[in-house]
């Protein structure tokens, strides 16, 4: 893989800019889509931005019986092919980190695609808790 996405919770202030950036980046019909990243408080003033880790041996990919989830070798992201997805939600149930999500408004499954190689969350994170960088 040529890129790596890193999350450093120690730097997260819980400002939720990433969540907003994500929702606005994945828009449909001019309405923000569901965010794929969630800064979650695990203690007073302590947060972890929870998002898809693009696992090597990913449960979502394994669980999809229709090959709708595939790795983009350039960006490293596991991408959802909407044309193949039938909304069975196997991936939602299988992901051990809860990062294959249901967008209730659009009644569809969504997951992080690293914005095709320039993730908005990392671009907007003011503290660099989220970093996407080339490693090779």
């Amino acid at each position, binding site marked *: 893989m040529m890129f790596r996405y890193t*999350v450093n*919770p*120690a730097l997260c202030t819980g400002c939720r800019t990433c969540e907003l950036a994500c929702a606005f980046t994945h828009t449909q019909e001019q309405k923000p889509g569901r965010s794929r990243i*969630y800064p*979650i*408080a*695990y*203690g007073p003033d*302590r*947060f*972890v931005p*929870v998002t898809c880790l693009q696992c090597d041996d990913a*449960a979502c990919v*394994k*669980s999809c*019986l*229709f*090959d*709708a989830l595939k790795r983009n070798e350039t960006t490293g992201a596991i991408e959802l*092919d909407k*044309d*193949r*997805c*039938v*909304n*069975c*939600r*196997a991936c*939602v*149930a*299988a*992901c*051990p*980190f*809860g*990062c*294959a*999500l*249901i967008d209730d408004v659009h009644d569809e499954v969504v997951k992080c695609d690293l914005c095709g190689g320039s993730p908005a969350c990392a671009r907007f994170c003011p503290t660099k808790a989220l970093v996407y960088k080339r490693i090779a």
Partner: protein
Amino acid sequence: MVQMTINGKVVKATEGEMLLAVIRRQGIDVPALCDHAAVEPCGSCRMCLVEITREDWNGWKKYVTSCLYPSEDGLIVTTHTPELQEIRRNILDLYMARCPGSELIQKMGEEYGLTRTSFKTIPEGDNCIMCYACTRICEVLGRSAISAVRRGHAKVISGPFGDPPPDCIGCLSCAHICPTDVIEWHDQDGVRGIWGRTFDLIACQQCGKTIITRDFAEYLKEKRQIPADYFDICDDCKRVELARKMGGLVDQAKEVAS
């Protein structure tokens, strides 16, 4: 690579790739009801008909279902002609009579200038256009729980012999792929109903939220080796759990550092 002409424009495509995909890549909108990327094409709905000809056909032409016609060198394809529009309108006229309850069909008909069908509406209109999207997707997932039963007018999609399908796992793939949205299902009180059967939904051990049926999870476990405990809690609670675990590690590291 092959070279074809689509609506007057020279286009390259992979040999054997179905015409419909190539046409759509050009940004041309051809109606299609039974085509879906996750299943093999079957050419049943006839909406995607296009006209093809070749230089050496001396003006001879024919209509083919583009979802099922492989790209080949020298093909001259036209997607919209008055004749094609007329054919599509006639097919929709019939579908409108058969599917009074399908919003999609009624809307498509309107797009072709039909305010209502000129045929007699089937009073008990079953809204199924017999496109086999449901049986095809069920086959892809490896269950083949449903199929067409009986012949002629009486033909319907159902489990074997018209009974509830014993091999169904309640995954809803069929219901979601159905273009006319006729496959009835419901989730209620932790139970999913479809095809005359009921299935237990797995309730999150922490919050009770349900996502898939127990039978579907069992199937994924067996077929794709997904560990059983992955299904114990829902996605919402898994995210909170992950934050707690990662947070714990961060705090530990901080303590070590200080």
